[in-house]
């Protein structure tokens, strides 16, 4: 497709720039992936399931939460439940994609398909910063995405193995790796009391739903209640 607007370049040099810009983010990614691997072994996943989640879902928050409702034997209903949970958690990516759409319009189909498979919060941030600074090469997204993917997959394995070796995980708090990590993620998201009002609604609704219903439906209902509160609020950000 030859768009009327000039097509953004997609070059190897851009990919290398993206990889370089992703380097400062790697320590955080390594810690997150290791925590996921350890949590997965605590929840009884085998090493192939754990690696498949990291390699193909490649979305840390969704992977972590999915572990909470993971099971040895599946039904259609429980699989649909995890899928809906995954969709809820990853819905934010729709917004990320919409933000880079004008930039990616005209990028060849295969390059787009690969770049979007690798799109995460971290590579999106790298790309947006690069573009805000005057850059235009779409391969910056791809290069940072590849770097983050390799790191994410590679760091999952030692976490899994370490988690599998611990005899008494509760004594070290390892059964709570997921909530502890999530709690830490809240600090960088903080933008003041106003934008946190939906979070409070999400928490209250989740606690109420937990009392009323079995299972982990409270995550979906609570998160959607928070999103609805956000939609109804007039103030910006």
């Amino acid at each position, binding site marked *: 497709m030859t768009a009327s607007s000039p097509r953004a370049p997609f070059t190897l040099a851009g990919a290398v720039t993206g990889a370089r810009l992703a380097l400062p983010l790697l320590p955080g990614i390594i810690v997150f992936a290791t925590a996921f691997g350890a949590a997965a072994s605590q929840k009884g996943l085998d090493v192939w*399931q754990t690696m*498949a*989640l990291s390699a*193909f*879902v490649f*979305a840390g*928050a969704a992977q972590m*939460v*999915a572990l*909470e409702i993971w099971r040895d*034997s*599946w039904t*259609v209903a*429980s*699989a649909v439940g*995890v899928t809906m949970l995954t969709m809820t958690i*990853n*819905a*934010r990516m729709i*917004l*990320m*994609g*919409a933000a*880079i*759409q004008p930039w990616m319009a005209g990028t060849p189909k295969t390059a787009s*398909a690969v770049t*979007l498979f690798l799109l995460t919060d971290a590579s999106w941030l790298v790309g947006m910063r690069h573009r805000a600074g005057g850059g235009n090469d779409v391969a910056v997204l791809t290069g940072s995405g590849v770097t983050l993917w390799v790191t994410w997959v590679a760091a999952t394995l030692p976490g899994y193995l370490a988690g599998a070796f611990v005899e008494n995980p*509760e004594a*070290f*708090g390892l059964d*709570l*790796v*997921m*909530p*502890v*990590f*999530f*709690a830490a993620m*809240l*600090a960088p*998201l903080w933008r003041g009391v106003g*934008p946190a009002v*939906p*979070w409070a609604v*999400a*928490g209250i609704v*989740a*606690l109420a739903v*937990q009392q009323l219903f079995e299972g982990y439906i*409270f995550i979906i209902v*609570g*998160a959607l*209640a*928070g*999103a*609805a509160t*956000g*939609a*109804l*609020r007039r103030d910006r950000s």
Partner: protein
Amino acid sequence: MTVLEEAFASPAGSYLTIFMMVVVTYFCRASGVVFMSRLRIRPWIERALRALPGSIVVATILPIAAQSGPAAFAGIAAAMATMAATRLEIAAIAVGLACVAAMRALGF
């Protein structure tokens, strides 16, 4: 049992589930770029999606902490405080887990 239920109950069920997660995740990744050339995100949808990440975190950790008891609350609070102070994930996790371990060792 239908064929579908049998497939999910079999050892392949985990991989079928992972496959479904992969499909919806890719849909989320691609749809913003693929559909936004035709649609536009209305302001209320944007506000809802912006409120979503923090809402997911709180809706996940509060009930789990409520179920696990005071050690979990202490660990979560310690992790948040450490993250706010240092911005280092590894420090936040280490302090959070150490706090849980200490509380449990003390019998909470």
